[in-house]
């Protein structure tokens, strides 16, 4: 318990979390502070490239083994499975329609790469190592949840409704910019290894924390605006789900990480990935595939409730549990 509290305090008082809090407060106070769209996009590209590259370098250093393949497989299975659990919880806890519940469920099977990046930053700050290939696991977990949610809806429709998923949407999901950049940088890092990192480390290592601070300030602004403008759509049931589901998801991630025999950092990252909810790739897919679902509900839940929860309390909790159970 002491370890959890200590980690939580350290995390809550870290620059990245305080920047996020500043963003939320500024938005709630109706400040006109905002980031130009291109700057936010640029920071996102930088973070994805840096985290992907460093993950690839780590794999190059430690080599490829069977656990990498099994971790990828476990990530895909978890991403496909979690929407069913989320859907069941939503139908039990909330009065959401089947359509809205399926759309929300898709978000909770997929992942938030920003939460993942923040978690790797916390692990680095705590001196806890993690498997570099968890970056690839993150990329693998983006899409399967969307297919599960669409299956849930088509099963409910009972008329073989397959118009929701077409080849264009499938291509957009599988080749969305985040996945391409993350996997691409991971492969470049894997190919060039430590030698490649040495050439660009002044760009992707030292400035990383500073850029992450500014990016989370922007995310705080977006989350705060979402809460201010759309918070009213959330009733107690969905709100409780937004906090409960990450804990449920992290338990599945914990089980997968322990079964695979991952390191403390690897288990913690598996928990973070399973606990996080998408707010970039999945909302776009849901708008195309399920336009009748209410975006205010799934965006406010994933970005306004679950993301801040994971960022402030979830990550230290997951790291502490992973440390306790792996002896790290």
């Amino acid at each position, binding site marked *: 318990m002491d370890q959890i509290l200590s980690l939580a305090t350290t995390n809550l008082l870290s620059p990245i979390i305080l920047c996020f809090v500043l963003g939320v407060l500024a938005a709630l106070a109706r400040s006109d502070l*905002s980031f130009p769209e291109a700057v936010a996009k640029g920071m996102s590209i930088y973070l994805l490239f840096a985290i992907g590259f460093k993950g690839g370098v780590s794999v190059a250093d430690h080599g490829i083994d069977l656990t990498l393949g099994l971790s990828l497989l476990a990530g895909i299975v978890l991403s496909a499975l979690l929407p069913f659990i989320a859907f069941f919880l939503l139908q039990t806890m909330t009065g959401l329609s089947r359509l809205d519940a399926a759309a929300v469920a898709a978000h909770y099977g997929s992942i938030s790469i920003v939460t993942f990046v923040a978690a790797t930053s916390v692990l680095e700050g705590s001196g806890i190592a993690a498997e570099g290939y968890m970056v690839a696991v993150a990329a693998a977990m983006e899409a399967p949840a969307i297919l599960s949610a669409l299956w849930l809806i088509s099963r409910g429709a009972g008329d073989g409704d397959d118009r929701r998923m077409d080849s264009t949407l499938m291509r957009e999901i599988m080749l969305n910019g985040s996945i391409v950049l993350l996997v691409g940088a991971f492969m470049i890092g894997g190919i060039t290894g430590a030698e490649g990192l040495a050439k660009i480390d002044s760009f992707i290592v030292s400035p990383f924390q500073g850029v992450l601070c500014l990016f989370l300030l922007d995310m705080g*602004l*977006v989350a705060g605006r979402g809460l201010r*403008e759309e918070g009213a759509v959330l009733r107690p049931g969905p709100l409780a789900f937004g906090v409960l589901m990450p804990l449920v998801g992290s338990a599945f991630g914990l089980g997968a990480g322990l079964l695979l025999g991952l390191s403390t950092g690897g288990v913690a990252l598996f928990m973070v990935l399973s606990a996080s909810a998408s707010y970039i790739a999945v*909302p776009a897919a849901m*708008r195309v595939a399920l336009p009748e679902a209410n975006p205010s509900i799934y*965006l406010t839940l994933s*970005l306004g409730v679950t993301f801040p929860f994971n960022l402030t309390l979830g990550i230290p909790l997951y790291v502490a549990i992973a440390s306790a159970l792996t002896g790290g």
Partner: protein
Amino acid sequence: MQTHKAKRVEITIEAVMQSRLTEALKKAEVSGYTVLPVLGGSGRSGEWSRSGQVSRAQGMVQVVCIIRPERLDDLLESAFEVVERYIGMVCVTDCDVLRAERF
């Protein structure tokens, strides 16, 4: 100066649907179109602004094209197949153009 009658079609649609709409326009043999970013607005789904969005999913764009009046129905049929289920607006106005052969 000699001008020619034409139709200006403005379709405001969610950004995620942009490529599908422009593909539909090409299939309807529209010779050209212009895509404009939308900064924000207010409608049945409430007020929104581009600066407050975290992904393309929530943003909107406006696709503008000028066509000959006799081709309007084909264009609208193609466009409607795309926009029917989504948030957006289709607006048709009369306009005059200088070089009719371009449309």
